[in-house]
C-alpha cells in the first residue's frame, strides 16, 4: 500500500513537449512510471518518444483520459496557463492533478481553489511543488510512481510517509531515511505557495489511514498556519509517530524567503509558533535538518 499513487497508476503529462515537462517525463519513464499520455494543445496525434516508448499526445486532457484511462496528471505548463490546465484536468475527471509549475499568480489559485470546492473526485497537489513519489521494488526504487521532478533513485520502498512544503528538504529527509536503510511508503511535496490544493493535514490523514505507513516525517516552514492545523489534528487523532522540522527560524519578518508562501507577516506564521504547536502535539522536533530521520527513528 501507499497513498494516492502506486506502480499501476496511469499518468499523463500536461505540457509534455516543453523542455521542463519533456525532461521529467523522460525521467519518470526511466523510473518505470506508467506515463500513458501527453497533452499539448495543437500537437494532438503526435508522439513523445523516449527509451523505446511511444507516448501519444492529445489536444485535450478529456481525449487523453478517454483514450488511455489515465487517472493522474503532472502539470508542467507555464504560469499564465497553469490555472486553466489544472481545471482542465479536474473537468476530465482525473483523480489527481499534480501542479509542478512555479510562479502562478495568487489570484489564479484563489479561483482554482474556489472552482474545485465541493469536487470530491479530483485532488490537487501543489502548485510550486516537487510532486509525489511512491517508491517501487526495483533497484534504486525503480518501478514506482514518480509524478513531478523529485529524484527517483534516492527513494527506497518502505513504511515512512514524508510530507513537505519544500522540494530539496523533502529529498534531504528521504535521503537520510534511505541512507539508514529505511524506506518510504509515499513522499508528497505539497508546494511552497500560499494557496495550494492539498495541505499538510490532508496528507497526514491519508498516512494515518494507510496500513502500510508506520511513521511520518512532516516538514514545514514559516508562513500561514497549515502546520499548526495539522499538529492540532495529530494531537487528537494520529495513531502513528510523527517527527517534524520547521525551516525559517532565522528569516527576517516581512520578507518572502524564496517560496511565495514563506513569509512572516503581522507576527503570524513564525517558526517559533509552529515548533510550539508541534511540541504540544507530541511531534518529535528535529532541532536541525540533519536530524529529521533520526528523530523519527528514535520514536519508533
Amino acid at each position, binding site marked *: 500500500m501507499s497513498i494516492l499513487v502506486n506502480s499501476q497508476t496511469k499518468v499523463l503529462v500536461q505540457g509534455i513537449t516543453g523542455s521542463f515537462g519533456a525532461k521529467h517525463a523522460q525521467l519518470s519513464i526511466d523510473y518505470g512510471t506508467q506515463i500513458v499520455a501527453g497533452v499539448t494543445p495543437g500537437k494532438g496525434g503526435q508522439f513523445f518518444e523516449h527509451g523505446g516508448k511511444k507516448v501519444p499526445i492529445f489536444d485535450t486532457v478529456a481525449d487523453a483520459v478517454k483514450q488511455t484511462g489515465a487517472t493522474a496528471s503532472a502539470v508542467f505548463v507555464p504560469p499564465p496557463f497553469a490555472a486553466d490546465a489544472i481545471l482542465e484536468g479536474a473537468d476530465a475527471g482525473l483523480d489527481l492533478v499534480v501542479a509542478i509549475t512555479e510562479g502562478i*499568480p495568487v489570484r489564479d489559485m484563489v479561483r482554482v481553489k474556489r472552482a474545485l470546492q465541493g469536487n470530491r473526485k479530483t485532488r490537487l497537489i501543489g502548485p510550486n511543488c516537487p510532486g509525489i513519489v511512491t517508491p517501487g521494488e526495483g533497484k534504486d526504487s525503480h518501478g514506482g510512481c514518480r509524478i513531478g*521532478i523529485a529524484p527517483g533513485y534516492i527513494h527506497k520502498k518502505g513504511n515512512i510517509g514524508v510530507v513537505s512544503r519544500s*522540494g530539496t528538504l523533502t529529498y534531504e529527509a528521504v535521503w537520510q531515511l534511505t541512507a539508514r536503510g529505511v524506506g518510504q511508503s509515499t513522499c508528497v511535496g505539497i508546494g511552497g505557495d500560499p494557496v495550494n490544493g492539498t495541505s499538510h493535514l490532508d496528507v497526514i490523514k491519508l498516512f494515518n489511514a494507510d496500513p502500510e505507513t508506520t511513521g511520518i516525517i512532516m516538514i514545514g516552514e514559516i508562513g500561514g498556519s497549515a502546520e499548526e492545523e495539522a499538529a492540532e489534528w495529530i494531537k487528537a487523532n494520529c495513531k502513528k509517530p510523527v517527527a517534524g522540522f520547521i525551516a525559517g527560524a*532565522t*528569516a527576517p519578518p516581512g*520578507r518572502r524567503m*524564496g517560496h511565495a508562501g514563506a513569509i512572516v507577516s503581522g507576527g503570524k506564521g513564525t517558526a517559533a509558533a509552529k515548533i510550539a504547536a508541534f511540541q504540544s502535539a507530541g511531534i518529535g522536533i528535529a532541532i*536541525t*535538518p540533519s536530524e529529521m530521520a533520526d528523530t523519527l527513528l528514535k520514536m519508533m
Partner: protein
Amino acid sequence: MNIHEYQAKQLLAQYGVNVPFEIPAKSLAEVRPAADKLVAAGSAKVVVKSQIHAGGRGKGTFKTGFQGGVKVASTIDEAVGFAEKMLGNVLVTKQTGADGRQVQTLLLAAGAKIKKEFYLAVLLNRETSRPLIMASTEGGMDIEEVAEKHPEKIFKETIDPAVGIMPYQARKIAAALGLKGDLFNAGVMLITGVYNTWWECDALMVELNPLAIVELADGQETVMALDAKISLDDNALYRHKNIQDMRDLNEEAPLEIEASKFNLNYIKLDGSIACLVNGAGLAMATMDIIQHYGGNPANFLDVGGGASKEQVTAAFKIILSDPNVKGIMVNIFGGIMDCNVIATGIVAAVKETGLKLPLVVRLEGNNVAAGKQTLAESGVAIINGDSMADAAQKIVKAVGK
C-alpha cells in the same frame, strides 16, 4: 513588489476610491507650482509627505538631523522649505533600518481636517484561500497591536471569489465602522473600490491607514483614503504593464537587483556567514543550522534547481560584495543535477573571484563521489562538509578563528 503611496492612490482612484487632491513632485522646481495649485483649490495648509517604501515616516528622522518625513505647512514658502530639507536626503524610520532610504519623491497634499480615522485592508486569508476585508474603528494605529489588545474592534468579511464583493458586504463593513447617512453610502462605494483594486491589480495587500472622515473647505464631510499602501503579486506583474512601470529600483537593495538578473533568489541579512544553497526550503534550513551552531547567516540565497556555472559564479560575486561576509557555506543536494557539474562550477567560481575566505562545501546526491573528487583535486582550499550539521559546525569554527 511594493509601490509608493502616491502610486497606490493613483490605482485606487481608477477603481472609484475617493482620494485627496494631491500632487507628486520629483524635484524642488515642481514643489512650488504644486503647492500653488493646492492653495488655489482652497486648501489652507499644505502637507509635504516623503515617499519611501516604509512606514513610520511621520516619526522618522533624516540623517541631516531634520525631524519628520511628513510635515504640515501653513504657507507655500514653508512647504518649499520643508521640501528642501526632505528631497534627496535619507530618511530613517523604525521600518527602514539604520541605513534609511533616500527620498526622491514628495507628495504634496491639501491639508485635511480629520474628523475620524479608520483602518481598512484587503488581503488573502490563507486559511480559507479567499480574500478577506479587515476594517477597524481604530484608524491610524498599529493594527497588529489593535488585533492583539482589542480583537473585538476588528471587523472581518470574507469575499467569495466566484461572486466578488456584494453590496451588502460593503454595507456591513460601513455599518461596522459606524458610518451614517451620506457618509454610509460614500463608504460603501469606497470599500467596494478598495476591494476591486485588490482583485483587479493582483494585489497581495491593500491597506488604508487611515481611511478618514474629512471635513472639506465648504464644511461638507466625506470619506477618503488619507494614506494607502499596496503590495503586488510579483507573479502577476506580467499582466499589468502600468504597474510594472511603478517599480522603483531605488527602493531595492542593489545586491538583490543584481541577483535577480541571474535568476538567483538573494536576500541580504546582517550576519557574517554567507550561504549558497539549492532550493528555498533548504536555504532557510541552512541559515537556521548556521545559527544553531553559533554563527550568523549573512544571506538567504537559493540558486534554484539547475544551478549553472554562470549562476554559481554570479552567486559568489554577489556574496563577496557584502563586506560583512567572513566565510561561505555551500549546501547542495543534487537530486537531478550532477554534483560534479556543481563542483566544477564552484572551483571555477573560486578561481575567478580569487576567494580568500574559508569555504565549506557540503555536496550530496547524484554523482557525489565524482563531485567531491573534483573539489579535492582542484588545488583550491575547500573544506569538505559531510553533512549539513558537519558543514555548519566547520564554517562557524573557521569564521570564529
